[in-house]
């Protein structure tokens, strides 16, 4: 068997089975550390043995069995430390057949545990990527531009807090579920944004891969909670944003705005899937499924853009109407800023400018970039230049700086 075939099989099984294996080990051994280590050791054993022994008929089963043995080996080594506890752990459900439903619940439990609100947001993201996403500590450190040792400590500390605090390994009670699920979705969206905002000509592929990871984890969450509108909304939102990726950066590494993008470069498959999800949610809301939340509204706004074959065909009235609803559930200044951009398309740049004056966003580059663009369109080049200067000063992304510098030069 060639190494390439084995490597391919390993990558696939890692993507499909990692979370399942870790989740079932956590349920059985009640310890994130043991589960993570045993799962990693099982994959290392596969790397060593599959090239010689061949890929097993059921790779996931082979890995689960191997990981379980590794975990039991570790516990046996530690046995003397408190025999009774460990023995009880080993005896409990030695041969429980795992039905698919139970496994799915395990993965969902794992996601809720990693995104527990008692953990700091940074720790939730890192732990979710490690335990559910299966990224290595160096990969996560790299993606978030943090030292490996610091990322390792962050994850170790999070696991220690979960252990010391007896964070329950379960799906939250019905009353807490919407809030806790909202917390999970925020983590997934943060992962997506970290990858998305980092993308540019000089960006590391590991960072760009975060968007794919976020989509994958959101798909998994949707599989596990299929009826939730916000999960569907977030998945649609990510798909519709990611579909435009190829058109978003020019050959020269400059950011291309939505209005100027070559729409033939958009990826049709994720757009179709995203539109399907938005339609599904619209029908569910019409059938009395409760008002759409933040992610469903953002997805709907993005769908208005992706429905338009040409930027000039964009239904800006629809965009403004959706932002009006979004502002009601999320009255943050960033949403107000984005709404003003849509209003400016309908009522002109001066109206947009009036809406954004005084927003408390002075440290946010997009505020100054938006202001600069509106001032330019309003025929106020001097003020526009000053706003571009400020936006360039604050922009943290190479493609964005290049775009803004170019725009400033055309004033």
């Amino acid at each position: 068997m060639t190494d390439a075939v084995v490597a391919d099989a390993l990558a696939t099984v890692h993507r499909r089975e990692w979370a399942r294996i870790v989740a079932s080990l956590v349920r059985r051994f009640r310890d994130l550390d043991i589960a993570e280590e045993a799962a990693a050791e099982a994959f290392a054993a596969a790397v060593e043995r599959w090239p010689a022994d061949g890929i097993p008929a059921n790779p996931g089963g082979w890995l689960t069995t191997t990981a379980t043995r590794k975990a039991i080996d570790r516990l046996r080594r530690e046995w003397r430390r408190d025999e009774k506890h460990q023995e009880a752990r080993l005896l409990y459900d030695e041969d429980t057949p795992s039905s698919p439903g139970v496994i799915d619940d395990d993965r969902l439990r794992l996601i809720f545990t990693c995104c527990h609100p008692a953990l700091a947001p940074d720790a939730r993201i890192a732990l979710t990527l490690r335990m559910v996403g299966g990224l290595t500590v160096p990969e996560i450190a790299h993606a978030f531009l943090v030292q490996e040792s610091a990322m390792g400590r962050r994850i170790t500390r999070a696991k220690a807090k979960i252990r010391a605090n007896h964070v329950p390994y379960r799906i939250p009670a019905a009353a807490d579920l919407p809030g806790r699920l909202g917390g999970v979705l925020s983590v997934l969206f943060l992962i997506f944004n970290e990858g998305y905002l980092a993308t540019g000509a000089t960006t590391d592929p590991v960072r760009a891969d975060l968007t794919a990871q976020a989509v994958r984890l959101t798909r998994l969450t949707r599989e596990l909670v299929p009826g939730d509108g916000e999960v569907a909304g977030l998945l649609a939102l990510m798909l519709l944003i990611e579909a435009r990726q190829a058109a978003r950066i020019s050959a020269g590494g400059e950011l291309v705005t939505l209005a100027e993008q070559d729409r033939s470069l958009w990826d049709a498959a994720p757009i179709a899937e995203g539109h399907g999800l938005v339609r599904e949610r619209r029908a569910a809301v019409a059938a009395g499924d409760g008002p759409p939340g933040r992610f469903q509204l953002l997805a709907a706004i993005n769908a208005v853009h992706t429905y338009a074959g040409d930027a000039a065909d964009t239904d800006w009235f629809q965009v403004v109407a959706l932002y009006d609803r979004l502002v009601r559930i999320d009255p943050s200044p960033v949403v107000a800023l984005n709404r003003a951009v849509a209003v400016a398309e309908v009522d002109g740049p001066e109206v947009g400018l009036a809406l954004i004056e005084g927003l408390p966003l002075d440290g946010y580059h997009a505020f100054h970039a938006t202001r600069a663009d509106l001032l330019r369109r309003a025929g106020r080049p001097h003020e526009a230049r000053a706003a571009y200067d400020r936006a360039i000063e604050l922009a943290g992304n190479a493609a964005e700086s290049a775009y803004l510098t170019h725009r400033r030069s055309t004033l």
Partner: protein
Amino acid sequence: MPQYLMSVYGPLERTDFGAYATKEEMLAAFADTGAFNDMLQREGYFVFANGLESAETATVVDGQHDQPVLTDGPYLESKEHIGGFWVIDVPDLDVALRLAAEGSKACRGKVEVRPFQTEESFVALLES
């Protein structure tokens, strides 16, 4: 079941009404906290609870040397000090956090939730 310490913090210097601005506020907080404690008892979560005198009344004792060294005042220099605490015995952190939110509302202060060591974690320490 795991036990947690729920501590409430308050200012170093107190008014005539303890950590509260007015007598009405103090009495309302006492009544609500009393009701909260009764609920903890009823549900079987209660281990211990009490309020502390002002941190200014504290004395730090260092007995590691020949003669104990006494220092007037609290151990940490801080604007906020522990003003009272509960010890609760609950199934898991989610229950502890829910109770902490109720306790915080009742006593009108922020509550820090911290797990006690367990037999298992203590044994792990000994074996480390």
